[in-house]
């Protein structure tokens, strides 16, 4: 998929633009922040000499040296613990989880230490924990998860899940600068598939907590984030072509703090809403968003709220099973049509 961003369309300013993948956008955000702020550094498994399992930090060791690009033992709890402590001392660590699934051993450090430390003591921890999430690569139950819901009920954590290269860059920059812990979920399926023309002479900074309208429409709102933005966009195009209906797609970008206002405003306009996420349904973000809409937009709804999500099972490995597990464009089309017809 190739995303044309506003900057790239029409203008003859190509010299100031560079084709940038989602992965490169993540690299650039870290690179540029490390260049300008000596407090920023990276810790994780195989991030140095190897450049990270997905090569996100390739070249960082040569540029910034081993004191700022630290290869650690396989000890996620110790890595996050150290990140909290070093953050107390004024540094801004970026921790890489080799796969976001391996955030699990650090759960205690994140939910009990990092998330609560400012509230309890007044001393904060400015840190980013980032890593590849998501399915579609047939990698089985431990290299494909979307973990946002595991953390959704914990106050004190911010969470980001970009869908575009521009947002990947701008949100990571904002996350690094943020004074509190931010979990940054980068979808591995998008790493090299998303390519955009991004400006090279402008600082891209996307504030946390602000959703983005990916596509405008008046007939139905799809609220989504991460890789599902692209499947929703495919579905919307198909429906525009085949049914003539216009779907609005709201890309949340930040999950916590959630841009409730943007969701409510869009749904009040369209009167119909479909919530799509790649994480399982039960206890997922769609549930919270549904509740907020019931509280704030009930009278504006012309149809029930619907969800398209993954199954409430672990993520299976075999391709036919995984394809069945994951929400697909066809599912979004089917649910959208039902809502539009209601």
């Amino acid at each position, binding site marked *: 998929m190739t995303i044309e961003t506003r900057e790239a369309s029409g203008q003859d300013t190509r010299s100031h633009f560079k084709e940038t993948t989602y992965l490169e956008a993540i690299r650039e955000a870290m690179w540029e922040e490390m260049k300008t702020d000596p407090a920023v550094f990276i810790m994780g*498994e*195989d991030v140095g*000499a*190897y450049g990270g*399992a997905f090569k996100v930090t390739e070249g960082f060791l040569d540029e910034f040296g081993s004191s700022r690009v630290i*290869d650690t*033992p*396989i*000890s*996620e*709890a*110790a890595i996050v613990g150290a990140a909290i402590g070093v953050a107390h001392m004024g540094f801004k660590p970026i921790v890489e989880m*080799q*796969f976001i*699934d*391996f955030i*699990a*051993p650090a759960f205690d450090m994140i939910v009990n230490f990092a998330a609560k430390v400012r509230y309890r003591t007044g001393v904060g921890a400015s840190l980013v924990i980032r890593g590849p999430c998501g399915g579609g*690569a*047939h*990698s*089985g*139950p*431990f*290299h494909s998860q979307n973990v946002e819901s595991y953390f959704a009920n914990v106050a004190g954590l911010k969470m980001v899940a970009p869908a575009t290269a521009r947002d990947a860059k701008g949100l990571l920059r904002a996350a690094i600068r943020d004074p509190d812990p931010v979990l940054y979920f980068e979808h591995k399926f998008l790493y090299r598939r998303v390519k955009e023309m991004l400006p090279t002479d402008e600082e891209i900074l996307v504030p946390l907590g602000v959703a983005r309208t990916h596509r405008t429409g008046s007939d139905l709102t799809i609220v989504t984030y991460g890789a599902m933005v692209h499947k929703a966009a495919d579905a919307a195009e198909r429906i525009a072509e085949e*049914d003539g209906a216009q779907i609005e797609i709201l890309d949340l970008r930040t999950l916590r703090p959630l841009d409730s206002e943007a969701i409510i405003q869009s749904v009040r306009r369209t009167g119909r809403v479909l919530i799509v996420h790649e994480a399982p*349904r*039960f206890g997922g973000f769609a549930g919270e968003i549904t509740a907020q809409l019931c509280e704030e937009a009930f009278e504006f709804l012309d149809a029930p709220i*619907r*969800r*398209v999500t993954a*199954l*409430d*099972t*672990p993520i*299976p*490995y*075999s*391709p*036919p*099973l*995984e*394809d*069945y*597990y994951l929400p697909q464009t066809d*599912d979004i089309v*089917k*649910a959208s*049509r*039902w809502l*539009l*017809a*209601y």
Partner: protein
Amino acid sequence: MASLTREELRDLYRYLLLTRGLEERLERLFKQGQIVGGLYRSLGQEATAVASAFVLDDGDWLSPSIRDMGALLVRGLHPREVLLQYMAREGSLCGGKDNTTHFTIPELGLLGPISPLGTQLCVLNGVALAFRLRGEPRVCMTYQGDGASRTGASHEGLNFAAVQRLPVIVILEHNRWAFATRSEREAAVEDWVDVAAAYGVPAASVDGNDVLAVYDAAREAVERARRGEGMTLIVAETYRMIGHAQHDPQHYVPKEELLEWRGRDPLARFQSYLLESGFESRAALAVVKEGVRRLLDTAVDDALAALMPEPEEALAGTFAGDAAAVPWTRRTHVYPDLAHSAMPS
């Protein structure tokens, strides 16, 4: 020194060959796009898994890590089952739901690991606890990489087994690398056997590429555990002779080091030993090789003929007894008929 019969020595040789041969087939299939997901090999480390698992009896349990294919074969897994599993086919050991060595097969005494490293030891401790609760002289054996041994789960598991004096044998595979990180950057110990001191347990350091040395160390540890004298940590000194997985060309590994360790190849060494000590003739070994080749040929053909699972199989099995899915696992919600409005076609 190992007191193994000629048949046992031949079996060990056969398992080494089978392990290497099976992984070579897997690699070929991987290059043909038949393997789903990543492929990790145990090249150069086969002796550690084969010779240690060889000590176990029926009824003992074992939990492999990613480079212990040999142990699985020794426990009785058929190469065809391994191939089906790695090809994510219908009827494979995890039914297509999980990959690599992640299957649990009670009849073979196999406890499947999960990817998060260090965790399986903690669970295997529970199997060992069951043996002790029932007063059975059975033992558990597991493997962990030098990298995996640095996780919190591993530390807790080792300590738990030590304090509870569980019949567990932990084989720490010091293969010098954890993905692209040198083992020196995983632990500050100079001699990895020293980690055992922290847990107060007996330990042994062994040449992991020497079949008989591994066998002897494992045997002593298994006997100790069976006598009710608790766990042993065995450090197998070995080397990962290939990248972490197929996608890793291991550019970061010094050539000289690989060359040096190539000279210690466990299969070549054991073959020379068998020939030089007069246990086997070249002709006899050729017969073994031919048997392994034929077995693998058939296994590959069988596996390639298997189908992929049906998509709906994803729904079943999250809880006991739900062969049919529980309602909330439905992929997309049932859409009530819209009697009052026509569905667009």
